[in-house]
């Protein structure tokens, strides 16, 4: 009995039909054309980066044509004899149950010109003799040794899958496996997979087995920055205001207040002169709307806040920007925190002084330079019961 738990998810959730295959519409159409015109050309070459769905597409072809698959790996293409033995007879007979057949030669670019001498030649002669469609998959089909093979086959390229599609697939898998992984992490996996669906699903499976929240957080954190960086790039490099610009921060898993700080920090890295002024003007207006939301609790203002922050800041330039900019993390909050740490003693001194002198702590802080001189009087220090740390701070 097969234990489903032991099957890798990338196999378990391999697509069945053409309809299931996402993000490769063009390739599927070409394959349909190939099947309709068979046997004008005997073979179809599916090529593309790993994990883009070549093997899945081959199995989908079998599913759609109700055929059975005869599979050959690169390692099986060792030599003439072996191929002839396996493929030779099979390709000329119908199967037992009168099902048609499809011959799948997986990963043909694994064939070595020297070691597997004759392998390619045999494959070519197979195409001649075969009564059934031959599907060949490869990562890189443009090598010289495949020239003849290309001529005799329909060539179908599979493109790298968009991360949004991968994200959708991961979400489906999560749902079926009943595992809860946060959206941040799924997005991160999808982006890092760089178009490789299999890698993404593998990553997800590994991650779901780990119960280390630290790592989950770490992955999430990385994603957060990645997405803000790409959003910043989008805002600062593009001059066109389109649908994508209006939704530019939707993918960023960060509160709008934090996005404010990122934009604020990085405006001078991209803009200068009149553009700088206009960009800060947009930011300033966005902040005015934020203030109104806070005071009036009128949340619809958020629409304008968001718009000004993205489209407003983007629209100050006439042309698209080229080049790469190393965006900086916001530093203001950190500076404020550091200063507060340093000023802790100052604050406690002011609290004591304010209480004695019937003024606010704020006023005392503001007058601190003057108070410092008055507080040189040791009698006053004693009366105010300043601690030795506080006195040290004053002496500095």
């Amino acid at each position, binding site marked *: 009995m097969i234990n489903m738990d032991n099957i890798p998810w990338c196999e378990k959730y391999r697509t069945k039909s053409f309809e299931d295959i996402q993000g490769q519409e063009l390739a599927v159409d070409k394959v349909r054309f190939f099947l309709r015109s068979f046997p004008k050309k005997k073979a179809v070459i599916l090529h593309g980066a790993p994990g883009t769905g070549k093997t899945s597409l081959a199995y989908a072809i079998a599913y759609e044509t109700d055929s059975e698959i005869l599979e050959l790996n690169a390692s099986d293409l060792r030599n003439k004899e072996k191929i002839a033995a396996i493929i030779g007879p099979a390709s000329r007979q119908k199967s037992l149950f009168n099902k048609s057949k499809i011959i799948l030669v997986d990963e043909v670019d694994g064939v070595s010109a020297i070691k597997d001498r004759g392998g390619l030649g045999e494959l070519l002669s197979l195409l001649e003799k075969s009564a059934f469609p031959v599907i060949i998959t490869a990562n890189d089909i443009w090598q010289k040794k495949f020239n003849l093979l290309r001529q005799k086959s329909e060539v179908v390229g599979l493109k790298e899958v968009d991360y949004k599609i991968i994200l959708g697939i991961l979400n489906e898998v999560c749902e079926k496996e009943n595992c809860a992984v946060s959206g941040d992490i799924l997005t991160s996996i999808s982006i890092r997979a760089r178009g490789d669906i299999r890698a993404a699903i593998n990553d997800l499976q590994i991650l779901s087995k780990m119960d280390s929240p630290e790592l989950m957080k770490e992955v999430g954190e990385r994603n957060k920055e990645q997405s803000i960086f790409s959003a910043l790039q989008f805002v600062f490099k593009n001059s066109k205001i389109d649908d994508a610009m209006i939704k530019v921060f939707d993918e960023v898993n960060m509160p709008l207040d934090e996005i404010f700080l990122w934009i604020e920090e990085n405006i001078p890295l991209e803009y200068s002169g009149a553009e700088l*002024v206009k960009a*800060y003007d947009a930011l300033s207006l966005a902040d*005015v709307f934020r203030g109104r939301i806070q005071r009036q609790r009128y949340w619809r203002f958020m629409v304008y806040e968001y718009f000004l922050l993205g489209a407003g800041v983007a629209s100050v330039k006439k042309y698209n920007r080229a080049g790469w900019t190393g965006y900086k993390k916001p530093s203001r909050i950190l*500076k404020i925190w550091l200063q507060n740490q340093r000023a802790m003693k100052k604050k406690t001194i002011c609290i004591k002084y*304010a209480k004695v*002198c019937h003024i606010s702590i*704020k006023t005392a802080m503001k007058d601190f330079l003057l108070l410092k001189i*008055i507080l040189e009087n040791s009698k006053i220090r004693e009366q*105010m019961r300043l601690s030795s740390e506080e006195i040290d701070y004053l002496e500095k």
Partner: protein
Amino acid sequence: MSVGFDSEVWTEKYRPKKFEDMVGQVEIIKRVKALTNSLNIPHLLFAGPAGTGKSTLALIIVKTLFGESWRENYLELNASDERGIDVIRQKVKDFARTKAIGDVPFKIIFLDEADALTREAQQALRRTMENYTSTCRFVMSCNYSSKILDPIQSRAVVFRFQLLEKKDIKRRVDLISDGEGLSITADAFDVLYEASEGDCRRVINLLQATASISPNITPDLVNTIVSKAKPSDIKIVLDYALSGDFVSSREKLLDIMLKESISGQDVIKAIQKEVWNLPIDNSLKVKLTEKTGEAEFRLVEGSDEFIQLEALLAGFILAGEGGIKEKKIGDI
């Protein structure tokens, strides 16, 4: 803890303790004294600039009303430090729960800098005032009464404090210099007064700081202290901006704001004053003042002061470039 009474901080040591000791605000003092003596004062609102005697008058009221036991019957809250109305309400509740000690049937709550409270907090305060009116009277102080909600103003008797006159402040300074054995030249007093903009508390602080160096107060000595106590110049920030160096300009600004603990509104006030001293065309000064006004408006409306100040600095950069251009045209 009876620190307040014999404090060596002169603003406390020489704080007037009786109505008769106060200088200026003659009419107000007359009326408040009459109310206090009748042992039934209403809620009071003192409006006026800093250092004109608002807190002092409030303290005199409680000391007159309660005598020795004034500390038990008096709660002082500073709204600019405790902005949350919940904190204030809780403290008011705790304080008002017990009956006043002595003959007076109520206690006094002094709510200093009440204009720092948000509108919502003021709305809540209004009910709090009503709920505890039998046990507590509120004395509130503020700089601008316009920032206090009408319903609160209508529940209180409003007194408007004027800036102290030079001769009034002179009387206090003379009293202190007698008590401390100082000698002050007339010029030195002028410098003290000018540097304090009529704020009596600041005059006394300056005087004490100066006297910590020498009992012979001269104009030079006062000036030394004044420049020592002056916050870093906002002008440096503007100079950077006008020269086109935005990043240094904003860095310096944040630096000053953090180190000197000054608010965005103080910064914008300083910028507004500084614009007229800048070495630029008058027409440009007008434009920059207009920009500053818009920035101050947005600062009040917005949520992050620093962003508004940055936007203003960016405007100064363009003005700097424009100014140079205009000069070039003039040269031709």
